[in-house]
């Protein structure tokens, strides 16, 4: 009974933390969208039309969803540290954070015209970094899944 109560308490705290995290993401994104609208110096290629809105929406869904997944996986990693699941969770977490980083860089570049590599490298290098980040993500996912499948007998 005591264990159940403790688990319930932890669940409530975790859900509150998850909701707070999502709220932070939502506010951060509102800021990313609102800043260029105030014509504050830096401006990218963003203009108000269906294509740019769709691209920004796709990035927003990816970033918010990716952060949600990373949070979820982090909870699992901490609970299963030292086990196969914990090792797989670490790979998944790193892969998902890499995905979020690439998507943030893409959207900041889209809206503000600046990115992690702007000023020190060409657009080609930036595109290469995006592709490398996404390829790294799926490679980490593959290694994570391989770790789990080997443990449960999937060959």
């Amino acid at each position, binding site marked *: 009974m005591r264990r159940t109560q403790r688990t319930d308490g932890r*669940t409530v705290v*975790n*859900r509150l*933390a*998850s909701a707070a995290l999502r709220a932070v993401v939502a506010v951060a994104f509102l800021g990313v969208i609102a800043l260029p609208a105030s014509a504050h110096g830096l401006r990218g290629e963003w203009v108000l*039309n*269906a*294509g*740019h809105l*769709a*691209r920004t*929406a*796709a*990035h927003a*869904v*990816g970033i918010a*969803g*990716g952060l949600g*997944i990373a*949070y*979820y*996986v982090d*909870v*699992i*990693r901490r*609970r*299963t540290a030292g*086990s*196969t*699941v914990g090792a*797989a*969770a670490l790979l*998944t977490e790193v892969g*998902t954070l890499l*995905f979020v980083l690439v*998507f943030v860089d*893409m959207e900041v570049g889209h809206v503000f015209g600046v990115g992690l590599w702007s000023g020190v490298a*060409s657009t*080609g*290098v930036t*595109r*290469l970094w995006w*592709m*490398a980040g*996404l*390829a790294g*993500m*799926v*490679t980490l*996912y*593959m290694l*994570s*899944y*391989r770790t*789990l*499948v080997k443990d*449960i*007998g*999937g*060959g």
Partner: protein
Amino acid sequence: MGTSFDASRLSGLAALALTALGVLVIVGTGASDRGLTEASAYLDLARSATHLLGLGSSVLLAYYAVQARRRFAGGVFGESATATAAGAGTFALAFLVMELNHGLGVDVLAVLGDMQLKMAVSMLLFTGTAFAFGWAFARIAGVLGGSDP
């Protein structure tokens, strides 16, 4: 059982090899003047190599998922494997579309017209990968010891 597993493994490796070969051919045929867009040839090769890494990893991920799905059909692992295979598929599709455009100048998404919409579709495919894998991992972790936060 052993024979069918070996056959599956061989077919998976064959798919991986074919994918790698296809990308190499795309780069090889595109090296003249068809589709390659970067200012530096090294950047072009690096970008194609990155696409190759992504395609290879996603095909391998799908291969592991199909193996697991066959062994655990009907259970939680089977559902997880299906989601993983779907996520790997969306990633491979996105990278293939990109490399076709980069290497051969073949624009599969031309019907969408607007460049921004095309990019949004690619982004949604990557997002689909992350969501599918996150869900699949959570299902397995729920059984093996992790639980829903």
